[in-house]
């Protein structure tokens, strides 16, 4: 394409990404968004103005050189685009899919001021997917330093830290308590948003193989081995164990059958492939009328999984969705405060998830078999803004009502799992259970131990966990080279 003027570029509409139709996709667990073709990616790339001072980059927690990789895509030089990307972000196929772009890079794009921002995430995903099938970029292990690093947890923080350290020549071992590496990417985020085999497994396996990273699954640090034992054997430790502990509300009926955490529901579905029961052995029960409490990404994932399971169940029974099947998102604030990614909310609505805003459960009611039969809720209204600046919801007296449901899934947020802290004396934690570590390097209160990702920040994002893993890797490298005294 000939060089365009900025005016012409701004006339190109933001390119939509092909998706499965809502009717089709609720019948399967395959990916919803199908990704750009080369044509679409190039056309979207043409929209970028190649700003001299690209504000988009300020919105990216790992400072991907956005205009540069977009230019390479525009020029059709995919190998170059991959190279620019991988300099900052090892996992573009994942970030392109799950970053909350609308509050990060894309929120700062200059085009967003008047119209729609460049679809940075979609182009990024295209670059990542291109690399997965074409393998242009060679990950190489640096000259061996003889130093050994233990990484605890194989989520985005741990994987990123491991990859960077191995590229610097250190000998890296990852300890993971589950039987599959990947953290939330494998046990939390569903297949229809993030394919497990073709994307996550491929990304992790390629990197581990190329860099001789040893991944030891089935190691629960705190039980199988403890931090003090790792200290004796390794020159440095990175703690990236995430925030995996579910929260429940303290209301009556919380322990009835049919009440569960989103972690349980999603782990059964994603990690254990319960949506393919009985082909896979772990059962997964979906109710006829499901309420998911909360409105973050986790809630959207649980609700959309439930919807699919209802359709699949009906499909097995040979008819269309069972009449009266419903999935509700029950959220105590209003639609303006929903914390989930925009795209997920949009997809959930298209698929038929019902949103009950300004509604909060007060009790779950059971039947004679100890199973959920209904949920008592109260209506809320928005009061004065709280410290976070959000208007806090307050109950409207006397507005209780019963919602007929047979399954209630709590997606209220998570906190760090304390198991890992057995025999880790001196490791300071906040009152929320998160590890105290400095933002710049990830150094904890114990010499030789770094931490990053959700275990430090509480539940956050994939890319911020990766950023923390990256910063820690750089600092660990300096430490191992003796460049500073702790």
């Amino acid at each position, binding site marked *: 394409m000939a060089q365009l003027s900025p005016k012409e570029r701004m006339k190109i509409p933001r390119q939509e990404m092909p998706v499965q139709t809502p009717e089709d996709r609720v019948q399967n667990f395959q990916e919803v968004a199908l990704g750009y073709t080369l044509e679409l990616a190039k056309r979207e790339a043409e929209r970028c103005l190649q700003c001299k001072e690209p504000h988009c980059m300020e919105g990216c927690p790992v400072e991907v050189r956005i205009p540069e990789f977009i230019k390479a895509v525009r020029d059709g030089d995919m190998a170059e685009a991959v190279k620019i990307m991988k300099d900052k972000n090892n996992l573009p196929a994942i970030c392109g899919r799950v970053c909350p772009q609308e509050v990060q890079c894309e929120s700062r794009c200059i085009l967003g001021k008047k119209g729609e921002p460049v679809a940075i995430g979609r182009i990024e995903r295209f670059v990542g997917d291109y690399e997965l099938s074409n393998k242009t970029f060679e990950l190489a292990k640096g000259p061996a330093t003889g130093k050994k690093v233990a990484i605890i947890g194989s989520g985005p923080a741990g994987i990123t830290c491991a990859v960077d350290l191995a590229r610097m020549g250190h000998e890296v071992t990852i300890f993971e308590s589950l039987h599959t590496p990947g953290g939330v990417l494998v046990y939390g985020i569903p297949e229809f948003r993030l394919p497990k085999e073709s994307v996550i497994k491929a990304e992790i396996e390629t990197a581990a193989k190329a860099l001789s990273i040893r991944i030891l699954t089935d190691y629960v640090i705190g039980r199988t081995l403890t931090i003090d034992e790792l200290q004796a054997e390794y020159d440095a430790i990175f703690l990236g164990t995430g925030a995996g502990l579910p929260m429940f509300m303290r209301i009556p009926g919380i322990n009835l059958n049919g009440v569960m955490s989103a972690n349980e529901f999603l782990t059964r579905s994603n990690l254990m492939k319960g949506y393919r029961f009985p082909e896979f052995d772990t059962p997964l029960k979906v109710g006829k009328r499901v309420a998911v409490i909360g409105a973050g990404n986790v809630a959207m994932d649980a609700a959309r999984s439930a919807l699919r399971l209802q359709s699949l169940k009906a499909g097995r029974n040979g008819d269309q969705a069972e009449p009266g099947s419903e999935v509700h998102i029950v959220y105590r604030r209003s639609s303006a405060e929903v914390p989930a990614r925009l795209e997920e909310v949009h997809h959930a609505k298209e698929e038929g998830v019902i949103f009950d805003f300004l509604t909060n459960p007060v009790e779950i009611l059971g039947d004679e078999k100890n199973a959920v039969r209904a949920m008592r809720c109260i209506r809320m209204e928005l009061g004065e803004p709280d410290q976070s600046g959000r208007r806090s919801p307050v109950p409207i007296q006397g507005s209780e009502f019963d919602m007929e449901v047979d399954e209630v899934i709590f997606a209220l947020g998570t906190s760090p*799992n304390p198991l890992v802290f057995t025999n880790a004396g001196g490791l300071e934690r906040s009152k929320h259970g998160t590890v105290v570590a400095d933002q710049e390097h990830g150094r904890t209160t114990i010499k030789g131990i770094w931490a990053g990702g959700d275990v430090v920040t509480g539940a956050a994002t994939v890319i911020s966990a990766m950023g923390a893993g990256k910063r820690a890797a750089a600092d660990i490298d300096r430490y191992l080279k003796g460049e500073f005294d702790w």
Partner: protein
Amino acid sequence: MYTILEKQVLSDVTKLMVVEAPQVARKARAGQFIIVLMHDQGERVPLTIADYDRTAGTITLIFQEVGKSTKEMGTMKVGDSFSHVVGPLGHPTDIENYGEVICVGGGVGIAPVYPIARELKEAGNHVISIIGARTKELLLWEDKMRAVSDELIVTTDDGSYGRKDLVTVPLKEILDSRPGKIAKIWAIGPAIMMKFVAATTKPYNVPTIVSLNTIMIDGTGMCGGCRVVLDDGARFVCVDGPEFDAHKVDWNNLLSRLAFYRNEEQTAVQRFEKDHECNLDRAISNGVR
């Protein structure tokens, strides 16, 4: 890794396996458990560490075939491997010299009670053990239990061996005949048995510990699927337990939670048995040919 080195058929439905898992054996203690995954399509099955050998790097598992996963596990042979074994999980038993203690094991629960009895004995306790099963066939490890107990009482529900009683009958007799003497009681077996042991010992106010076998997934505290309701709120059995004060447990809630996936479990077992029969038929017809 995780290779089966030895297999014993203790009864038609009870199997013992010695499995190579050095990192688990290194740390294992009485009262703890592991989670096994047979293969990539399998489910995560919690099993108590019935015994361990640190030098050989092995653990001993005993399981009863109750559903699809345990039935399929029963078909595994020496030389086969589990795809994953993780542990040791849960808290070990609090072993001290308490004085006179009772260990109650019901059915396959005899296996997990054995290392507890052994360690209590080693710690200097006077150990009275009561082991029971529905029928003689299902009784296991009588000799091993005898070796670590000062007194041993054996019962069967149908009287085919030992006393014809439920384990709670001799238990009550001992509590009546030695008032104030028994310092602590451990009971492991089917949930329903533990419920009745709790009811039996409560009037005597003797501290009673049970090891709960709720449904689990990760076994590390991240799903909450294993929760149990105590007097003062819910706990996660995998990380807060598996041992709890029997007198605080809401047994009816526990029993109803164990039954939650019953329909699915039946589907799985029927499907498994059908496949299994087809394989058997094929093997037989191949043999005939």
